[in-house]
């Protein structure tokens, strides 16, 4: 169990023993920029920050974040914290959002395509990469926004699942823009920001418009951390840390090039 209310600022000391308390986190072992087994993702870094503030060490249960993730991890008691969930997610209790991001249009800079909206007529002539989730007839919002507008014939699908034996399966869509396999991709902001910044070929990211497509299709999302429903104490402790260490959280997100629609406190931003 995790006790709250007795946080104190961490003190660096060469002889300091590992904290006895444990912050149990469930995360995907193969999903940069969010998280991986080597703790290289921004969720890993923010989890570490929280643990430090709470005088604890992080222990992970690694689980691919797919159907069944919350049931098998957080809600099975295998861990107490999931470092990223949509703030309106019903299967967990959300902390206050720590970033708001958006799906983005991703193109090669040298194509000069200047796409800003799903209503731009140039889309009719492009091969458009989209992220596929295959969840009972629904898909990532760009797929719906584009099919509604009659662009089904231009869509090229990149499954979020792809090949889990390879690193970061959802990243294939960004490679596809860089290589020219597609002219445009519409991908979730944090994924696009991180992998685009690592491409040798310069890529351009632009938030999609509209932000909410009719009839009720959001393309922007607030992201929180998640705890078990009913675990208000841990949620409050996390909220308290995230507020106090706002600048450091923003700076981690900025380092990973997370496109943000909310204004960072200081020093952050895309």
């Amino acid at each position: 169990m995790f006790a709250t209310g007795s946080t104190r600022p961490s003190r660096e000391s060469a002889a300091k023993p590992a904290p006895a308390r444990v912050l149990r986190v469930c995360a995907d072992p193969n999903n940069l920029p969010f998280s991986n087994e080597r703790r290289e993702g921004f969720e890993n870094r923010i989890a570490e920050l929280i643990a430090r503030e709470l005088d604890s060490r992080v222990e992970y249960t690694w689980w691919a974040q797919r159907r069944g993730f919350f049931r098998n991890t957080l809600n099975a008691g295998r861990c107490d914290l999931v470092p990223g969930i949509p703030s309106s997610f019903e299967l967990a209790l959300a902390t206050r959002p720590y970033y708001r991001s958006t799906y983005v249009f991703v193109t090669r800079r040298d194509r000069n395509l200047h796409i800003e909206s799903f209503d731009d007529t140039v889309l009719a002539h492009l091969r458009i990469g989209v992220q596929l989730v295959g969840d009972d007839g629904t898909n990532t919002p760009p797929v719906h926004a584009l099919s509604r507008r009659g662009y089904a014939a231009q869509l090229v699908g990149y499954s979020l699942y792809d090949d889990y034996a390879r690193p970061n399966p959802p990243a294939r869509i960004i490679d596809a823009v860089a290589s020219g396999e597609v002219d445009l991709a519409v991908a979730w902001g944090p994924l696009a920001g991180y992998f685009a910044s690592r491409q040798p070929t310069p890529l351009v990211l632009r938030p999609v418009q509209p932000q909410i497509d009719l009839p009720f299709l959001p393309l922007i999302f607030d992201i929180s951390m998640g705890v078990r429903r009913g675990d208000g104490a841990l949620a409050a402790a996390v909220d308290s840390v995230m507020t106090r260490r706002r600048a450091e959280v923003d700076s981690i997100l900025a380092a990973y090039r997370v496109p943000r629609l909310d204004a960072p406190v200081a020093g952050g931003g895309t």
Partner: protein
Amino acid sequence: MSDLRLVVRMKSVVVVGLGAGLVLACERSADIAPDASRADSAVAVAPTPDTAAVSDDDGQWVRSARDYAGTRFSGLTQINSNNVAALAPAWTFSTGVNRGQEAAPIVVGSTMYVVTPYPNILYALDLTRPGTTRWTYQPKPSSSAQGVACCDVVNRGAAYADGRVFINTLDAQTIAVDAETGKEIWRTRLGDINKGETMTMAPLVVKGKVLVGNSGGEFGVRGWLTALDARTGEIAWRAYHTGPDADVLIGERFKPFYPSDRGTDLGMKTWPPDMWKTGGGTAWGFISYDPELDLIYYGTANPGPWNPEARPGDNKWTSGIFARDPDDGQAVWFYQTSPHDLYDHDGINESILVDLEWQGATRKVLIHPGRTGYMYVIDRTSGQVLAAPPFGYITSATGVDLETGRIQPVAAKQPRTGIVVREICPASPGTKDWQPAAWSPQHRMVFVPHQNLCMDFEGVEANYIAGTPFVGANVKFYAGPGGWRGRFMAWDPVAGRAVWTIEERFPVWSGALVTAGDLAFYGTMDGWFKAIHATTGRELWRFKTGSGIIGQPVTYRGPDGKQYVAILAGVGGWSGAIVSADLDPRDSTAGGGFVNAMRDLKAATTKGGTLYVFALP
């Protein structure tokens, strides 16, 4: 076929199939008596009994549906409507795996073969010493990282042929094991679980080929049916279910009955460009075979992972039924039960091969209880739909047009993200899902386990996969009209209506068995195994097993000459995930919406994984 019974003395074995004129291992003297129930000594069967003779013998059960026609009918009469009330457990066996048990136990001679859900352990049970094993084979399928292969990881059973037992593993391998010794003979990897390519279906062996189909449509897996050489495990042919004709093995022999299935490369043209490459259309159901026509019949699953609006077109060859040549896989006809599927209505349900008196002539048909809620009677030589009356409550369509073969959808019931659409019936699991029906040639009726569920699409809810947020339809299932969620019925396919029905509280997710003893058997999700008077529908016997039943019941003659009925109990599968996967009943959209309809299941059953074998005392 022959009703000759098998009696063995001492170490000698004779198996005689009168029609086929086959004789095996005729060594020392043997007595052949017309009624095996008078046998008084334990028997042993030759190491490699000829499959044709063995499978014709009602005392055996060498493949899921017993025979190639898929009838699940047994001619055994020792247990019958007069004495079944005395049926009692003879022995049990714990599989050690407490997940959804969907398999049919396979019986060959004095050995029963049971394969479990992941990790797909294959047990060879010694029927001469009930409850003990001759051997255990552990395929050790790769586990993949946790969470990669979601959900209940069922297996629908093994198949026996020519001294070998064949199984599929979750990580998409087909394995041949020596039936006598349990030694692995070959294994062939057909997919990569890291890419979502899995296998759960029961193989069918036809003319020296092991026929297997894949699962995993939601992951963008491209569906196929593959034939492996039973001796070597090498791929003999593969038919994809989307893409160019060459991949789908559509050529000169392909003569679909309806115009909308005619044309070249429809597996590409009925999709937006390239979308067929991740088109789904997997084949995870049962296969049947007509040796006279020399055709196999099986269904394809729905298109995935694309949502319907992204994939305009009929999306061939998903959600339909193929007839193919087992030697080379060439397609002979196809019928699409759900063109441009909107509801997750796979076409994988079984096709039972029956010769019916139809409007004054004998027609060779197949009976396919559809996910769509229609009981298709299809001419199996041509693919023509002779009738498709509803066998459940349907709001999503008005019927099947027999001229064009096409289902007639109701526009108002088409789900669209963000729009509330209520009372879509049948819900995604359909009026019947994979759970197989049985056909009695004596009663001339189909015995159908199925469900009565409707669904609402109620706005959206936030979802999150691999760090990617999206809104998914908020889908809830609930009982259809009448309030009962399951039903078991006897259906007359010529009259096109039910003869008798039994309503059940939960969906009847088990398979059906029917016998010449005038009995039908099925199991309920809260663990009751029931014997029903096949003629009248009256319940004659029930037994409460340790966990909900979603397996396939079988019956066989044991080494002692007595008739036995066997069933695996262990709830799970899609409908039972709330128990086997311990879902939160408060989350009405968990389990793909099924949890809403199954909140009370947790109070009615717990997980399990036990084989029950019943006999008369």
